[in-house]
């Protein structure tokens, strides 16, 4: 069931500027993803796509609290996180379309969105795999004394796989600067998380197993997300080690592709739709003094950006077959044969 909304009053501790930025990110994610879904049904987006519609507050709230050089690690449901770190929309669409100017040249696809330039260190499609990898990036930052923090986003279902356990324990022992964020959207693919998990709170009820505090936050409340992001990232940067956060949220649509999510009770869906973070936050910002013009401008700009990105991606060429075998190895090539003596 949905947690209760925190009182807007508390938000005075967050600058309106920051909050408007969070709202901008959320709107951009929302419009980008809704359009992506339409384009999937249009057949333009190939393969698969896992949307984060409804979960934008987590990505936006965290991104606003991160330093530019902090690392993001996400899952196949990673578009929101890529956008929140500043990855341009056009190349992401182009990647979903399988085009040459895709963010990954068409090689990665929807499940592997990565933009190292924006410290978006990847979207990982094997459940749990990126938790140890994020720990490794945090260990590297610790060793390099760079002050960077790694933030690793994953789902509720991921808390039941081995890699979760190994990463949490080793991160805690090493006091690695990493924040693990479980986006508990209540379901794995089609199975309710409660049906396959021994504890009611898949992440929070595991925290003590790693000597960590249980932290649950309303993942649909961008201000709450920002606050916990700020405090846990600071803690990590200060050398006090990792945190594990369970953010309660919900995906408005199905798990992926054409899934309509019909396995979910109507009233549950209704209750969560009523807590849609985007209009909710818009209203709260209005109460907090944001003008209609400000908010209108943000909405409009996001709409234009999405439209422009789509047009740009539509115009992008298909990949050249010549790149099929490039970038398997660091010499840019694919040869598993050492060069012949005669060249």
């Amino acid at each position: 069931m949905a947690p209760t909304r925190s009182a807007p009053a508390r938000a005075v501790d967050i600058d309106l500027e920051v909050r408007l930025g969070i709202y901008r990110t959320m709107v951009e994610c929302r419009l980008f993803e809704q359009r992506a879904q339409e384009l999937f049904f249009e057949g333009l987006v190939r393969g698969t796509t896992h949307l984060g519609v409804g979960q934008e507050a987590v990505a936006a709230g965290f991104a606003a609290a991160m330093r530019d050089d902090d690392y993001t690690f996400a899952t196949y449901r990673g578009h929101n996180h890529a956008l929140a770190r500043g990855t341009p929309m056009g190349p992401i669409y182009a990647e979903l379309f399988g085009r040459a100017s895709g963010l990954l040249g068409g090689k990665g696809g929807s499940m592997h969105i990565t933009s190292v330039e924006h410290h978006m260190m990847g979207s990982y499609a094997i459940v749990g795999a990126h938790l140890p990898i994020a720990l490794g990036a945090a260990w590297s930052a610790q060793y390099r004394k760079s002050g960077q923090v790694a933030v690793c986003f994953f789902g509720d279902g991921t808390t039941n796989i081995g890699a979760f356990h190994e990463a949490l324990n080793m991160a805690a022992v090493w006091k690695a600067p990493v924040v693990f964020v479980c986006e508990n959207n209540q379901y794995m693919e089609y199975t309710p998380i409660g049906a396959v998990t021994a504890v009611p709170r898949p992440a929070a009820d595991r925290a003590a197993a790693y000597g960590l505090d249980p932290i649950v936050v309303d993942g649909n409340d961008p201000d709450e997300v920002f606050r916990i992001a700020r405090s846990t990232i600071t803690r990590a940067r200060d050398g006090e080690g990792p945190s594990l956060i369970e953010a309660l949220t919900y995906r408005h649509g199905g798990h992926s592709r054409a899934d309509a999510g019909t396995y979910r009770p109507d009233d549950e869906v209704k209750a969560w739709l009523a807590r849609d973070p985007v209009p909710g936050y818009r209203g709260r910002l209005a109460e907090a003094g944001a003008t209609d013009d400000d908010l209108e401008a943000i909405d409009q700009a996001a709409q234009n950006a999405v439209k422009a990105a789509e047009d740009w991606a539509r115009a992008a060429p298909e990949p050249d077959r010549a790149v099929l075998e490039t970038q398997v190895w660091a010499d840019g090539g694919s040869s598993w044969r050492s060069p012949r003596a005669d060249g």
Partner: protein
Amino acid sequence: MAELTYRAAVATGIAQEMERDETVVFLGEDVAAAGGVFKTTEGLLARFGPDRVRDTPISEQAIVGAAMGAAMTGLRPIAELMFSDFFAVAWDMVANQIAKTRYMTDGQVTLPLVLRTANGGGLRFGAQHSQSVESWAMAIPGLKVVAPSNPADVVGLMAAAIRDPDPVVFCESKALFAVKGEVPDGEHVEPLGKASVVRAGTDCTIVALAAMVPRSVEAAERLATDHGISAEVVDLRTLVPLDVATILGSVAKTSRLFTVEENPRLCGWGAEIASIVVDEGFWSLDAPIARITTPHIPLPAAAVLEDAAIPTADRIVATVRDRLEAAR
């Protein structure tokens, strides 16, 4: 004869065996209530109930390990790995535990179980959801490996795999799920370890597996009509046991061998077959053996790239034609 899709044949084969043997149980992620993410197991929960058809957490090691523990204590479990790429997450259970335990215990422990999985590419899912891992399993002593190319074989080989006393890795081709085919009525069981010559020919032998079989047959038809080349196509059906006799018999007749493999090149099953033929069939070879495989690369997501990576009928036709013309 009923016409079934390859997808529907999976549930049909499993149901046939669950019907006749109470010890057959089935577990995996989203396999029960949801009927599987590829809808290959729809209806099994309703028909056999939650004690025999179980949804699991996302815990591949526990899924495969539980199947092993159940198999050594009187059950015949079927475990689903949603995508064959996820074998990597449970590889210790498969390669170190399940494959070796009978030998390590000198036969005290028997493991009649099936590990089912959606294998291969063609769906634009990218490098981590499109692999062909049948050769990974072939490399591990103690495993049997099955990869059907049509709905009838899905049912017949699934039945044989479930009845087999040894652990069987059963690879279902994603690219074939929608393909329809005739399936014999009544109980249908096909023995493991028998390849089938799906098209007779005299000029060369094309050995293929799973999704590469229909492509090889199409290529063979075009080679015949467009180039006057008579290609024999062998559907291996199982990699372990391997029907070496049928392969050598065909090569003895045609003197030329091509393998068509969906896997990346290095150490694929075709390499093993080439190494067998260049030893035991050496004197019947009139020309080099050519392997037609996915290049040694991870699979790309973009349609044009994935289509350029996995062997197509076009590539098979071109390769066979060039090789045979070169020899003329």
